[in-house]
């Protein structure tokens, strides 16, 4: 019970932070963290297969792709204003 | 003797079998001991075998089993020590850190062995590798008073014994 409440609070906090932070990189890290917490939530909801998919696709692959995208964006910005 | 060696190089059968056995054992563990899905398992084993042959072509390996056991024992004891040490540092009410950066000359030949050394040192007490140069290893040390060089030398010796590599005298 305490576990679920804490998990829900952390989920809400990371989601709000990820949406409102102005720093793109921090938003991506928070997104990854949100994905990992969400996987834990799925595990608590007796859906281990969705937990697996969430961890692999939601946090892992999308996280890495988003990090990659932020890297490209930064590089572009630097090229434009050296 | 020589012709046997040449044959082994042309048809790397032995490493192939060794790897196949390894991957089968891995699959057995992953499937938690039951062979219900062993069709999928067979395909996975084949794919893993092909990938490993592409990424890591079998070379002349002289992995010594006693060396491996020695290395594992040393590694387990030392990493336990490392964890306890860093845990005590983190939980002490007053932080007592004396970090320093040291360069340690390397004696292992270039290649996998050096990478293994750098990565292993990350889990041993108070050391964190931060860059392999051509002649030395740059390390961040948690406590400059600890005998880092002796520890690195010991780890080096264990790795060299495990992989059957010579250590350059310095």
């Amino acid at each position, binding site marked *: 019970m305490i576990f679920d409440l804490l998990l829900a609070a952390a989920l809400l906090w990371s989601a709000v932070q990820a949406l409102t932070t102005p720093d793109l990189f921090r938003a991506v890290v928070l997104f990854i963290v949100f994905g990992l917490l969400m996987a834990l939530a799925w595990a608590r909801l007796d859906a281990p297969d969705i937990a697996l998919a969430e961890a692999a696709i939601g946090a892992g692959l999308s996280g890495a792709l988003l990090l990659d995208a932020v890297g490209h964006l930064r590089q572009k910005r630097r090229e434009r204003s050296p | 003797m020589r012709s046997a060696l040449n044959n082994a190089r042309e048809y790397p059968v032995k490493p192939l079998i060794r790897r196949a056995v390894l991957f089968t054992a891995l699959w057995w563990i992953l499937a938690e001991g039951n062979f219900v899905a062993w069709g999928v398992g067979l395909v996975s084993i084949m794919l893993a075998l092909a990938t490993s042959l592409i990424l890591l072509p079998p070379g002349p390996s002289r992995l010594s089993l006693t060396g491996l056991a020695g290395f594992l024992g040393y590694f387990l004891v030392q990493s336990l020590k490392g964890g306890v040490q860093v845990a005590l540092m*983190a939980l002490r009410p007053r932080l007592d850190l004396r970090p320093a950066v040291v360069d340690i000359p390397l004696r292992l030949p270039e290649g996998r062995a050096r990478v293994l050394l750098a990565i292993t040192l990350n889990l041993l007490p108070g050391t964190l590798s931060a860059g392999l140069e051509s002649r030395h290893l740059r390390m961040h040390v948690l406590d400059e008073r600890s005998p880092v060089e002796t520890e690195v030398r010991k780890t080096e010796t264990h790795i060299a014994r495990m992989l059957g590599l010579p250590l350059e005298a310095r």
Partner: protein
Amino acid sequence: MDILDLLSVVLLIVGAAFFLAGTMGLLRFPDVYTRLHALAKADNLGLGFTVLGLALQAPGVAAGLKLVLVWLLALAASATLSYLIARRAFAKGIVPWKPEEREP
């Protein structure tokens, strides 16, 4: 409660203590390098003890070995990653933290 259960209780609690130490290190240590030390060593040891404690309760040999496999994977992952991050930090010129000189 037999001796095996007792042993796994002890192992699990020791593991949790190491996790606590890792988190404390992450929060209290002064710079990236020292935090990497704390994460790589303490957390992996914590996971190791947790895995051992659970493996004693595992339904079969293969299930127990699978837990150990998870641990080995996590070990390799964090050792490699801390090397990569530390190397990049040095390349970027982040100066390691030094304690201020205190007169004895």
